[in-house]
């Protein structure tokens, strides 16, 4: 266990170091370095998670030589290490799946710069997962913002430029609000370490001092991070950013970046402000209402899209709404359901974006629905991934999406007031809307081939082997990534108890 104490710090520093080294490496070497770093960290996080599951207590780790109350601290427990593992695995698979697009979208000479951004992004996400003080949180929030822009704009065309400008502006607004919140908290409590702040806040509430500034602080934290996690109505940057970026970048942005901020928000509610103050707080009701509106309006917007990546982006807005609906319920069961959806959405949406990349490849690089007719038959692995993704989004048992519906509805049923009815109505309506736009795309993908009927189309077994012969050598990583995503989705759907137990155990020791 002693050596494992270093894993969180290692997880944050190693990618940064590797990123700096990538500056001087050519494309292939930087890709290999990045993959190695991610695999090594994934293994270490797995060992760390195992040690917690075997009963090791959570620990805090002091960075540098300054102790509380002025130093930087990170803290690790089941939940943090499970989230870290999720980030690492999904990032690995996204990079594998989108590799070919990196070559074509970015240009060989600049691929190493892309990997620098990715590694720093990874480091910032892991830091946000493990951090135990607000100062570290702010620093890595900013690194996250900049590097996320980096991975969007690495594909140089007008769309990404406009999208990342918009993202940057709105995201920096969010960071700014977050920073003001930190300044206010520091002014009110004199601390930056989360447990210390919680003690001070509890005292303030008991004494009845500074109630208005405290409420403003909580609101600032919530809104600032909500802006960065694309909660409705702060989501307007998301469709452009996620749809214009390269396939791997879209997968990472939709699947991981949003989640790191959500996790930070949960951490702040639990550890900085504390459950005593947060339970029954009005901001949670606001998050619930916005979450519900996001669930409905995200889906409504997705219905009208004619471009597959924009449709997936709006679908993300809707699914993020589920997460905030869970948080807004204000119970442990609600937060647990939100975290389940964090994992499930990361896995499913990353898979869908990678598959969308494959479908675009099979349709001459175009992403509008007219060009994608029959693409599911041309790239059968992507088609299969889309089928699995659709079933998961609709929430059929066997697939991961069913588990999030199960946990969210059970959590909603536990609050016996208006929140139950609003959440349930929203879940029902958004499910049907989600089914509509996903199944519409599916029937498009597996429909007729449009005007280009292939002569002598090989059928049956010969079709599969012809496909494999054509693609296996070039796109091995892509095929493996998609199969791995499908496998994870089914694993969560079939053996969800493992995931849910880890999350619940982690939440129990989260403060």
């Amino acid at each position: 266990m002693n050596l494992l104490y270093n894993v969180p710090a290692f997880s944050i520093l190693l990618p940064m170091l590797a990123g700096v080294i990538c500056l001087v490496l050519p494309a292939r070497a930087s890709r290999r370095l990045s993959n190695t770093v991610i695999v090594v960290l994934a293994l270490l996080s797995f060992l760390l998670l195992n040690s917690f599951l075997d009963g090791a207590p959570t620990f805090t780790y002091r960075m540098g030589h300054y102790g509380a109350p002025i130093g930087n601290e990170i803290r690790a427990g089941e939940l943090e290490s499970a989230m870290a593992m999720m980030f690492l695995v999904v990032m690995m698979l996204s990079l594998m799946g989108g590799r070919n697009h990196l070559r074509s979208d970015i240009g060989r000479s600049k691929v190493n710069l892309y990997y620098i951004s990715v590694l720093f992004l990874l480091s910032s996400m892991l830091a946000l997962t493990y951090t135990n003080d607000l100062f570290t949180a702010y620093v890595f929030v900013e690194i996250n913002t900049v590097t996320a822009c980096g991975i969007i704009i690495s594909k140089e065309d007008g769309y990404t430029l406009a999208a990342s400008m918009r993202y940057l502006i709105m995201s920096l607004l969010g960071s700014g609000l977050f920073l003001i919140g930190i300044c206010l908290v520091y002014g009110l409590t004199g601390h930056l370490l989360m447990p210390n702040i919680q003690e001070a806040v509890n005292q303030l509430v008991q004494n009845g001092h500074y109630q208005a500034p405290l409420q403003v602080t909580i609101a600032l934290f919530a809104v600032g991070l909500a802006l960065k996690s694309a909660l409705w109505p702060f989501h307007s940057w998301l469709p452009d950013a996620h749809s214009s970026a390269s396939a791997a970048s879209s997968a990472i942005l939709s699947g991981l970046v949003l989640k790191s901020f959500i996790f930070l928000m949960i951490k702040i509610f639990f550890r900085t402000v504390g459950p005593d103050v947060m339970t029954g707080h009005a901001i949670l009701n606001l998050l619930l209402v916005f979450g519900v509106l996001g669930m409905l309006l995200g889906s409504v917007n997705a219905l009208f899209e004619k471009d597959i990546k924009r449709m997936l982006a709006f679908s993300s807005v809707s699914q993020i709404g589920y997460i905030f609906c869970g948080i807004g319920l204000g119970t442990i069961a609600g937060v647990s359901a939100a975290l389940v959806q964090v994992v499930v959405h990361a896995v499913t949406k990353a898979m869908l974006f990678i598959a969308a990349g494959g479908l675009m490849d099979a349709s001459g690089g175009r992403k509008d629905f007219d060009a994608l007719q029959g693409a599911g038959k041309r790239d059968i692995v992507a088609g299969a991934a889309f089928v699995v993704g659709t079933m998961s989004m609709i929430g059929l048992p066997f697939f991961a999406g069913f588990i999030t519906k199960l946990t969210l509805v059970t959590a909603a049923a536990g609050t016996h007031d208006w929140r139950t009815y609003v959440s349930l109505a929203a879940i029902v309506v958004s499910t049907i809307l989600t089914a509509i736009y996903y199944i519409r795309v599916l029937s498009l993908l597996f429909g007729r081939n449009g005007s280009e009927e292939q002569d002598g189309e090989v059928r049956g077994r010969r079709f599969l082997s012809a496909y494999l012969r054509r693609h296996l050598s070039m796109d091995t990583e892509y095929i493996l990534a998609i199969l791995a995503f499908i496998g994870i989705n089914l694993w969560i759907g079939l053996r969800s108890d493992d995931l849910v137990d880890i999350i619940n155990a982690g939440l129990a020791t989260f403060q």
Partner: protein
Amino acid sequence: MQEAPFVLLMLTDSLTLAFRADVLGLAFLTLALLMWTAVGIYALRYKDHQENNGRFFAFYLLTLVMLVGLSLAANYVTMYLFFEMMTLCSVPLVLHNGSAEASSAAKKYLFYSIFGATLGLLGLFFIHAYSISSDFLPGGVLDAAKIAGNEEMLRTIAFLAVMGFGAKAGLFPLHAWLPAAHPVAPSPASAVLSGVITKAGVFCIIRVIYFQFGAAFLRDTWVQRSWIAVALLTILMGSLMAFREKRLKTRLAYSTVSQVSYILLGLFFLNEAAFAGALLHVLYHSILKDGLFLSAGNILYQTHLENVEELKGLGRQMPRTLGCFAIFSLGLTGIPPFAGFLSKWELAAGALSSGLLPYAWLAPAVLLISAMLTAGYLFPIVIHGFFPGRAYRSEGPDTGEAPVAMVGVVGALAAATVVLGLFGAPILKFFLDLAGTIFL
């Protein structure tokens, strides 16, 4: 005591995918298999009329597989899974001929069904949270201690879940997919859609009401009254719409909307006689409606005529088909000794004995009015077919009777109508005994 279910796999430690063959499930399974076989034999000859048969038969069989899973499901989540899969497998049947109308009808079917299934899913989650066991147990599985204080919420959920599964059974207001889907689907597909797949919705409703929430929990509540009101509304509305409709298959589709609500009405009265009448009507309606749709298929195959008015004088050309159609019409209207009379009688008896005013007398009145409307929308077809009037001159070529296999199946169903109508009493007794085991 029931035997233990066969657990295929565990989704979570309390939700499992499990199967059990109890009497109700086996009865439904037998009906599905028999109808599928009969219509399958018909389809083997009908397929000469259509293209892409490989695809058609593939989904035809897949839907049957899902129905098997549905009837043998031992708990709510298994039933829900197979219900959704059955919807997904039957959509290509509606979509089969690829026209724009088929495409929009298939979408309508899909979305109404998924919406309904999602409402049913809510039922699953609440039962899961408030029950003692996730299995189907006669009398319900609600844990009295857990539900204390939450009865109204659970009643609302029960209401929504049944309305959701009712979408598949054509219950107002989610019935609109039926008249859209039937005319565009190939005739064998329409037959099984009306004859068996709507009954899958009925089956799920039986499981939800009697084996999960329990009849006692819902008896004499606003939920029961609302259900009965909606069923009566659907019966009347379906019959009236059928009466006005000119396209034959759409008319039969509205007839299904009306007739399946007879079954639901019987289920909603929550007593043994009505329940037995409902189950008997499941059997009778499957045979009658399959027969009607297959006769329509014969007509379509031979003459390509779709509208009722064009069928004048058809009796000269297709006497056997139209004769069977006459038998099915008599049965559907509820005229003894054909199949259809005994089930309606039992339904009315169950309604009258339920003591639930004003539905106790309103329901038999509605059943009577609906029977007259049924006669009104079915008999003229037969009468004008055989007796077109002296002024009628036949236009169009005389293409003769439909092929032997197809007429044979329709004839077999007509024979079944007569036989099961004459010997309906033992079947009714079987269902009454079954009801006795369910109403504890």
